[in-house]
């Protein structure tokens, strides 16, 4: 019955639906704004790309002792690295199993140890641990891959 109805609708031209073209062009534009090619050998450039990709304000990668490996901050983020690692070390000493530290201030201040590094991120909204982990993993993989860093 349904197939007869559908055939009749087509034959008699009763299908008044049409493709919403203006909506489609708007949808297409969304993707063009979110195409990020992070294929670079420059660590600082990579962090800048990741900043846009994950919609965060600042990324600082530090070693566990507080020295800066790379940062998107002007002045190389030394302050971020020192405060971030000190804070993380203190929290780790109190809560040894802690994996991520999120602090809500005017903005979100997020800390995560990953392998032998500490990732310090500032953002207007908090990142999920899954996304934070993906960000750290991408940086770590690039560091391991590109000896030029």
């Amino acid at each position, binding site marked *: 019955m349904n197939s007869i109805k559908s055939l009749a609708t087509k034959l008699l031209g009763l*299908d008044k639906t049409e493709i919403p073209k203006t909506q489609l062009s708007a*949808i297409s534009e969304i993707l063009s704004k979110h195409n990020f090619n992070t294929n670079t050998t420059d660590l600082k450039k990579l962090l800048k790309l990741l900043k846009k990709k*994950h919609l965060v304000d600042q990324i600082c990668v530090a070693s566990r002792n507080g020295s800066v490996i790379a940062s998107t901050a002007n002045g190389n983020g030394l302050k971020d690295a020192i405060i971030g690692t000190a804070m993380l070390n203190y929290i780790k000493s109190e809560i040894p199993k802690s994996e991520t530290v999120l602090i809500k201030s005017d903005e979100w201040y997020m800390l995560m140890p990953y392998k032998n590094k500490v990732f310090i991120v500032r953002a207007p909204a908090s990142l999920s641990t899954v996304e934070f982990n993906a960000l750290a993993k991408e940086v770590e993989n690039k560091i391991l891959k590109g000896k030029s860093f």
Partner: protein
Amino acid sequence: MGTVYALASGKGGVGKTTITANLGIALAQRGKKVLLVDADIAMANLSLLLGMHSSPITLHDVLLGESSLQDAIYDGPGGVSFVPSGLSFESYRRVDSSRLTGLIDSVKEEFDYILLDAPAGIETNVMSALSASDNVILVTMPISPSIADVLKTKIVAERLGAKPIGIIVNFVRKEKGEILPEDIMKMLELPIYGLVPYDEEIRKAFMREKIMPTILFKPNAKAIASINEIAEKLTGVSSAEIKKKKKSFITSFLNKLFSIFKRKPKQSSKDDIGEETEEESFDQNELPEISEDSIEIEK
């Protein structure tokens, strides 16, 4: 080592769960070891569709660290293994879905295909499912809200380092206003794995005393033919080959039986193995090619 696929959509109600269940069974019918995971820890619909919602140990217990994943793997219908999610709201509020990646990695060796039925949306639980997968298959309907949502899911998947590999367009009615497969491919910059037609038989799967995936009670349904094609694309094993195997099994069984009585076996009839009827087959020739090379993406 198996491959983990997350079936995700952004929008709810596009048929992810139905496709996951039927596709999983279609893969198992091709001789593959398949694990289905109800990764929708808030709305455990796959557990309902597979009739396993009252399993004693669920993914909730595993994510809470109270049970091992091995204890939560059950024999599901149609030859698949299955990890159900819990229906309890209390345990859902306590689980940490970010542990999913490590858990899935721990069973990758045991299966050829692991299919994760991801929740709708782009929030944390979805991210966990996407992050736990090697490949993401996006499920959408041929309408603009569904495509807009699936596009966001694609962006989130890429942010998490997951790899979107293709699209399944579900509920295809071939109406004039439906967005064309070519346009969907261009917009999402991905190949189409299958066009699944709207099919009343799929809806009816939920209207039975014993709920089960359509592939098990109506294997010749139009939508199932399309899902079988997707399984064929993923495995390289066609439905015809399965039938051939079934046929040769029946023939060899009859041979053995008749050799006892030293009589010549009769050829097995088509009816014995559930041949498809022409009337119910969906014209898959109209589908666009799925090869990535075949897509011309407008940059």
